[in-house]
């Protein structure tokens, strides 16, 4: 096409083609409907134009079968769109279990990113091609939103909780990372770069980054330094439960409720321990609100996760 601009952005993730198929279906249905309405309006306007002031057309009060037809057909099409869209939405929201995990902390007006290797980046994210990548994101201030048009994924980054987004890039190259949730003065400058590399190039890039600590290792150090290790003994004999293998498992609270020890629960528990105390233990843990930054929180959670992974590996 010689328009001077494309109509769709490049497809650079496994999901992009799927989204475009759905979009094309929607465009097709819309074009057929809009086209036939325009055609009819113009046709009727010309064919039945008023030829004399004395014209008095006979009334047509309505037609029940027509009403039913033009209710049921759009409804059927709508249900197809719904089902197709919901199916895709599920996929967009279900990160594969083996995805490479990257932490993202957004703040006015930058993206702070930490690679699994521990390397930190600002406003840049390097990922290998053909490998699922899961981002665990939070914000230090207002709501932001992570959007990569070429990947067709977007998710708000919300303070006070973790949201996730995942993608699997299919083409090496550089892509825009946009903040799409208005976040203040320099919202339009909160633009980053996604660099998709071949696995070899990515490996070299990681090695070139030097000996950075992985988030889990940094978290382990924080775990010692913040005094967590004093009570949460690995053998469970301390005044607080052992955290080995806890991640992802259900825990019973003093209120007899059961919750899954996921990122959200661990985060809430570290910041305000009193709200959901694990049954059988005294509520003595001090709140860490204001003492840990979002980055440090993410690292401690990464450490607790790694304990679960280690245990699983040992069991196997």
């Amino acid at each position, binding site marked *: 096409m010689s328009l001077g601009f494309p109509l769709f952005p490049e497809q650079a993730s496994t999901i992009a083609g799927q989204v475009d198929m759905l979009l094309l279906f929607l465009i097709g249905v819309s074009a057929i409907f809009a086209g036939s309405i325009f055609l009819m309006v113009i046709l009727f306007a010309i064919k039945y134009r008023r030829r004399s002031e004395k014209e008095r057309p006979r009334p047509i009060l309505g037609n029940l079968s027509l009403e039913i037809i033009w209710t049921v057909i759009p409804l059927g099409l709508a249900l197809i769109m719904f089902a197709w869209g919901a199916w895709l939405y599920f996929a967009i929201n279900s990160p594969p279990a083996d995805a490479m995990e990257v932490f993202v902390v957004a703040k006015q007006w930058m993206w702070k990113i930490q690679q699994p290797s521990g390397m930190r980046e600002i406003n840049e994210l390097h990922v290998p091609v053909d490998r699922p990548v899961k981002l665990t994101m939070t914000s230090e201030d207002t709501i932001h939103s992570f959007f990569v048009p070429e990947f067709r994924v977007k998710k708000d980054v919300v303070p006070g909780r973790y949201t996730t987004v995942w993608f699997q890039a299919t083409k090496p190259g550089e892509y825009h990372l946009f903040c799409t949730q208005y976040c203040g003065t320099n919202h339009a400058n909160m633009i980053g770069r996604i660099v998709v590399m071949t696995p070899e190039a990515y490996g070299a890039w990681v090695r070139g980054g030097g000996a950075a600590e992985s988030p889990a290792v940094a978290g382990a150090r924080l775990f010692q330094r913040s005094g967590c290790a004093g009570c949460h003994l690995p053998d469970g004999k301390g005044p607080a439960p052992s955290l080995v293998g806890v991640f992802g498992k259900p825990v019973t609270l003093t*209120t007899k409720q059961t919750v899954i020890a996921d990122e959200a629960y661990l985060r809430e528990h570290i910041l*305000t*321990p*009193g*709200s*959901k105390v694990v049954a059988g233990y005294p*509520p003595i*843990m001090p*709140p860490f*609100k204001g003492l840990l930054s979002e980055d440090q929180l993410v690292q401690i959670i990464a450490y607790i996760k790694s304990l679960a992974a280690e245990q699983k590996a040992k069991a196997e």
Partner: protein
Amino acid sequence: MHPRRRKLASIDSPLQHHFVGLEQQHEASTLGMWVFLVTEIMFFGGLFTLFTVYVTIHAEAFAEGSKHLDLLLGSVNTAVLIGSSFTMAMAVKSAQLGQRKPLLGFLVLTMFLGCVFIGIKGIEYTHKFEQHLVPGRNFHLDSPVAQNVQLFFSFYFAMTGLHALHMVIGVGVLTWLLVHSWHGRFSPTYFWPVEVSGLYWHFVDIVWIFLFPLLYLVARHA
């Protein structure tokens, strides 16, 4: 209704020119007040929705906050407000029957009970202030979930404050009614101002009927 039979409206008549008769005017006013009350339901509804969400996710903190409220004063206030609803209903009945003296009496009684309610609320607010339970810089509580208890008190003050504001407006409306009934303006054919004010007063009572258990009782055993 006889819409085509038009009554002559003199200047002093309570009938406004665009209505066909007093009956139509009465029905329009009552319906108008009900529609207004529907908007009031939604107005308080926003706060009730938020409260429902937070009482679910911060159950323990909200239970703790609830225990800091004065159950005795809250219960007494509930009884006072129910009593005022009763006297208001009687005031409307007196107006319907055209009995001026009972109307005046019940209006005064309703206003009195309304003021008692506001007074007791004031005492409770003072206590909370002294106990450093007012959200903000002076909030202080020794609790592992102090912050979420503060959120409970944000709701407590927002909801009861908005309710108290409605009470104050209600007392103002009653004063207006009192003046007009003193001058004998109301009659068995023209009493809609008393009736629609009554609807408003009862509505404010109903809001409290829900606020009382939600704030003082529901979370006690969570």
